[in-house]
């Protein structure tokens, strides 16, 4: 229970004294002798006057207001759509909470945590419900991992290369430190029947989103996440609780989680049949393609930027990630894939998490096509667009992970092109 803060007589006196001193400062007359000043106007204004006040919750600089998630939603149903992480404006590997990508099927529910429970039932020895207060008492672990929408980068299937900034074409992926309870603790408490093979997860949003997840994954590394980058989950990221399944496509990381029902068969819900399945050239469709395969993207230089100096030295920088493990290698090409050079990987290189890569590039004004190609610890190499389409046709829609090509013109402009 929260106790009201106790204020001692001494603290009170200190505050009173401080208040008096501040009041005195404000009332001081501004006696300035301009002739004798050592720094008349060669220091910026923010060094000559007190700065802003403290804030209860910090916000980015007003000069960074263009760094936003790009929203693409259905005007007729504004809660159905996505917002993209501006990967091209960010550095490092951790996505700030306000910029984590969103995919909502019917808006962001404003859930009162005191009225929310998680029910674990179905093929268990004992159906159990958990409220937030109880869950907060369980041992928690933290891990950094990416979450990527199965539909990320799907504009790559189009016949013509989309001219969107890197994040606004490939930013349905974000990387955060998630803290929560290993799901196996809760499942084992309920007691798993031997016939259970799948778990139907359901969210408490206005789509009551339901989807089947192999029990094996929940017993492996899945978290019931309560915290994101150290603070409680944002409403748009599942408050008060969500699933985090490292390396598996976003739709399975059910937000606003209300139920886990253990079953022997998948439920065949809309989001595992109609959506998040990939049509193949023979008319069949791949289903239960859970893992996000290795992928990389040069975030700088990228479309929307330009190269101001010719010749000039530019730091090629980008992100690589794999749902199968660690990134072991990222190669960079400046000639459309004819030759490749290894980029430097910034540590720590984490399992199923963003890895930042970089390489200095001495540009001498030549026409160039910049590409990055990731390899993960299983030996899987990110495919060219040509190879991806060769394998999967043009109508797969989901799980597009081909190499991205940025054309650098002789003028230093940058366009998105398809590889050569």
């Amino acid at each position, binding site marked *: 229970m929260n106790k009201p803060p106790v204020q001692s007589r001494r603290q009170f006196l200190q505050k009173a004294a401080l208040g008096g001193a501040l009041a005195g400062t404000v009332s001081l007359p501004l006696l300035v002798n301009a002739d004798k000043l050592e720094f008349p106007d060669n220091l910026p204004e923010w060094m000559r006057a007190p700065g802003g006040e403290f804030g209860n919750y910090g916000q980015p600089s007003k000069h960074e207001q263009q760094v936003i998630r790009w929203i693409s939603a259905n005007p007729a149903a504004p809660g159905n759509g996505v917002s993209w992480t501006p990967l091209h404006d960010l550095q490092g590997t951790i996505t700030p909470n306000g910029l984590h990508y969103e995919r909502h099927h019917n808006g962001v529910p404003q859930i009162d945590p005191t009225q929310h429970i998680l029910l674990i039932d179905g093929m268990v020895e004992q159906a159990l*419900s958990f409220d937030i207060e109880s869950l907060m008492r369980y041992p928690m672990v933290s891990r950094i991992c990416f979450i990527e929408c199965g539909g990320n980068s799907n504009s790559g299937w189009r016949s013509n290369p989309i001219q969107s900034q890197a994040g606004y074409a490939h930013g349905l992926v974000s990387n955060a430190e998630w803290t929560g309870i290993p799901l196996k603790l809760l499942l084992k*408490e309920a007691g798993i029947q031997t016939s259970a093979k799948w778990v139907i997860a359901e969210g408490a949003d206005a789509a009551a989103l339901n989807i089947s997840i192999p029990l094996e994954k929940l017993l492996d590394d899945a978290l019931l996440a309560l915290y994101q980058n150290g603070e409680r989950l944002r409403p748009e990221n599942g408050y008060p609780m969500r699933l985090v399944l490292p390396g598996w496509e976003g739709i399975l990381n059910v937000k606003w989680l209300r139920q886990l029902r253990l079953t022997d068969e998948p439920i*065949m819900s*809309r989001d595992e049949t109609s959506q998040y399945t990939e049509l193949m050239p023979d008319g069949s469709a791949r*289903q*239960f393609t859970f893992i996000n395969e290795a992928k990389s993207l040069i975030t700088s230089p990228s479309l929307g930027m330009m190269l101001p100096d010719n010749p000039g030295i530019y730091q090629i920088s980008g992100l690589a990630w794999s749902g199968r493990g660690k990134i072991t290698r990222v190669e960079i090409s400046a000639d459309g894939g004819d030759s490749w050079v290894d980029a430097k990987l910034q540590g720590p290189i984490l399992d199923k998490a963003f890895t930042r890569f970089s390489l200095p590039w001495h540009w001498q004004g030549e026409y160039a096509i910049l590409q990055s190609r990731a390899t993960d610890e299983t030996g899987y190499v990110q495919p060219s667009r040509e190879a991806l389409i060769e394998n999967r046709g043009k109508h797969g829609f989901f799980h597009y992970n081909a190499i991205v090509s940025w054309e650098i013109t002789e003028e230093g402009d940058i366009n998105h092109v398809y590889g050569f």
Partner: protein
Amino acid sequence: MSTVSKVFTTTLLLLLASYSHAESDHQSLGKPAEALSQQTQWNLSIAPDGKVLPKGKGFAAQGQQIFALKCAVCHGPEAIGASADPLVGEVGSLTSDYPEKTVNSYWPYATTLFDYIRRSMPINAPFSLTPDEVYALSAYILSQDAIIAEDFELNEETLPRVTMPNRDGFTAFYPEK
């Protein structure tokens, strides 16, 4: 035994007890929820066997009227799509140059249609339809491509027996081979 040594012994036993149960580093705090688990609002997911389908029935003609009132604004008057996805038509298009994944051309199970309408449609008022209305809407959509006849009664018994055109169109990638 002196009081001091009694206290010492008790403390030691407690420590040993905690070490011998090293796996239980936390308390089990889940509350038994068998009764809750039986309630309708915790049984929304409908598997292809249709076991938890609610009792009810509906026909395409009723469904068409409900569709015009509550669905056409997004899915188009003929259910061929507008701001929201097309639902009917294009059966057999999956191998063409312009495949369309409608309910009738792509979805493998009719139970999914009922499940999805009931839990999330209409998008501005989910959970506002009666079971009969959901059966009727499902009947309307399915009848548009003659998957069921116009006068077919869709209910909790007949719905799971409907065979969708693309029933065998999916290849499971899990578990990986």
